[in-house]
């Protein structure tokens, strides 16, 4: 009786079959743990500290004193956020601007996604390519380009004045309007792509069935296409809304001094005031503001996806 000894490769394959799954799932988790959860905990820790003129510029949370640990948790930063109307205004402003931008992006993105999904093979690929194309240029440069377009001496004003349509240049830059343009422009692909993927998957015979049952085309859209594309609408809206709330570059470059958004406040706390604890608590509060609705949406989305199976 001789036992067949597995070769090294066979042993490796068998090991992979048994443990491969853990490896595949484990790596991204490890990544997220190291580069998301750990920094988050550091920020959380700082948010409970007190600002100091020191290196680093905040007090230590845990101090080894004699034979024990001295824990000094400071909730003052969060209370301060509540007491100063600046922060609450900035939060509300951010949410308002992000929400309006999301709605505008949805209104523009939906017809585009619909058109792409209904286009024929090669045209469809070309259109998708065009949607993704702007990503090949740096985001910063594209926002700077908008300065050139919207500025007092920018392209639009030059063109309109050149054609004698206006005599005074329009003030477009450094307004909320410019912020909307910037956000909608930047985040449009994030709306189009998930919408496209749900619309493209939709069974065309459903629309035909609706027409066949006496439903006019626009009504069939409202009753069949729109409800069935809700997962895409939600996914796209979240992808636009979440980063738009914390957006810093666009309001900084295109917005005026009055465009108060939380991203800018955060920046100021960190770099102008050098108050790391306050800045950290602003960041944590924003996270909590956002995580709750996201979890709610994902819960709904999970339900509808289950129903769609």
């Amino acid at each position, binding site marked *: 009786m001789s036992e067949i000894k597995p070769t090294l490769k066979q042993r490796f394959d068998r090991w992979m079959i048994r443990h491969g799954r853990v490896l595949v799932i484990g790596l991204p988790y490890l990544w997220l743990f190291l580069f998301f959860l750990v920094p988050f905990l550091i920020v959380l820790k700082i948010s409970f500290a007190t600002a100091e003129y020191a290196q680093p510029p905040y007090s230590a949370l845990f101090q080894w004193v004699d034979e024990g640990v001295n824990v000094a948790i400071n909730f003052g930063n969060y209370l301060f956020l509540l007491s100063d109307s600046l922060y609450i205004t900035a939060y509300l402003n951010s949410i308002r601007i992000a929400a309006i931008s999301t709605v505008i992006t949805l209104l523009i993105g939906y017809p585009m996604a619909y058109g792409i999904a209904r286009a024929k093979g090669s045209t469809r690929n070309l259109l998708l390519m065009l949607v993704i194309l702007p990503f090949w240029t740096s985001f910063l440069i594209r926002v700077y380009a908008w300065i050139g377009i919207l500025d007092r001496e920018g392209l639009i004003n030059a063109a309109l004045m050149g054609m004698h349509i206006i005599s005074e240049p329009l003030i477009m830059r450094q307004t909320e309007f410019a912020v909307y343009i910037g956000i909608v422009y930047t985040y449009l692909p994030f709306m189009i792509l998930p919408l496209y993927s749900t619309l493209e998957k939709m*069974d065309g*015979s*459903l629309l*035909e*069935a*609706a*027409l*066949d*049952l*006496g*439903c*006019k*085309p626009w*009504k069939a859209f409202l*009753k*069949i296409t729109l*409800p*069935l594309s809700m997962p895409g609408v939600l996914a796209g809206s979240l992808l636009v809304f979440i980063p738009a709330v914390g957006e810093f570059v666009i309001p900084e470059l295109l917005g005026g001094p009055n465009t108060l958004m939380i991203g800018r406040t955060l920046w100021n706390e960190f770099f102008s005031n050098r108050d790391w604890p306050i800045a950290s608590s602003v960041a944590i509060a924003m996270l909590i503001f956002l995580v709750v609705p996201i979890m709610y949406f994902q819960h709904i989305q999970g339900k*509808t996806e289950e*129903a*769609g*199976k």
Partner: protein
Amino acid sequence: MSQGANQQEARECVQSSQPWNDPDAVPFIRFEKVTKKFGDFYAVDDVSLDIYRHELFALLGGSGCGKTTLLRMLAGFEELTDGKIFIDGVDMAGVPPYERPTNMMFQSYALFPHMSVETNVAFGLHQDGYSKSEIKDRVADMLALVQMSKFAKRKPHQLSGGQRQRVALARSLVKQPKVLLLDEPLGALDKKLREQTQFELVNIQEKLGTTFVMVTHDQEEAMTMASRIAVMNEGVIKQKGTPFELYEYPNSRFTANFLGQVNLIEGTLVDDDEKYAIIRSDDIGGDIYIDHAVQGHEGTTLWVALRPERLRLCTEKPEDSAHNCFGGKVEEIGYLGGLSTYHVRLDSGLRIKVSEPNTHRHNEPRYTWEDRVWVTWETGSASVLNQ
């Protein structure tokens, strides 16, 4: 006198159940030289077809034969390249799907996944603005008809394939369309369920009297259900008629082959006298005697179509049969329980298929491999095709 009246009555009865044999009958659906091109490809090529009220008409053919395109043109999903379609005397040109008196049952069923069974069925009625109570009643009636009342609140994804099929049927029937279009209605069901559902569909059709136009690739399904069948190939109708006519009197090798099993034997017409037409075939190595008139003159190439179940096998050469008797060896046996099929290699080298019902229980099979057998058939069993 009264006998004459009876005959008249009988004839009228035949005519009302077979309107296609009545020259005065008005067709309910009329395809007039209908052509549909996709690019350079003729999906449907100059098809003319009349379908009568209360018919269950089947368009039969393989994939890509144009049957589905024809159905979709009837529903209004495809524009005609040329020709006209009339439903109940009205030209359908430019009439959108949502204004046509047709409803369609889709192959995929196309149930709205976000609506319950009830809402799916009610969808069509809502479009026509019926009152809430009427919609409720009609939906309930229809769900009862297809035995789905219990599942009214379920969503499509909670139903089995057979149940979805019923909901799709209910949804397409609830508006009482003049014509119900069925695209491979039973294609997604397993065999047992399909057979059962075939008869249910026919019963429902008879109960409601709606005109059904059905597309299928399954000849058995078409023959079981349809009053008439049009066999299609490459965008044209090769033959139309009752299942009986198509099976017993095919007009081409294509139809003979498509419906059921057939042995096709090529030969030349050598003699056509009052009693027999004689077709000489090198393939079979002899003369085939036919007892009915044959189209063509002496020297014409013809094909003799022989159904396997019309052939008989004997272990010894029968004495009485002077005609149509050929010796050979059993090469393959397929035992199907109810009947057995034999592939017999004739002395000429031609392989011929014979099927015999197993009417008795024997201790062992009647024939076995390599048995010497004789294949015979009656002079009236064969049909002769000239294309």
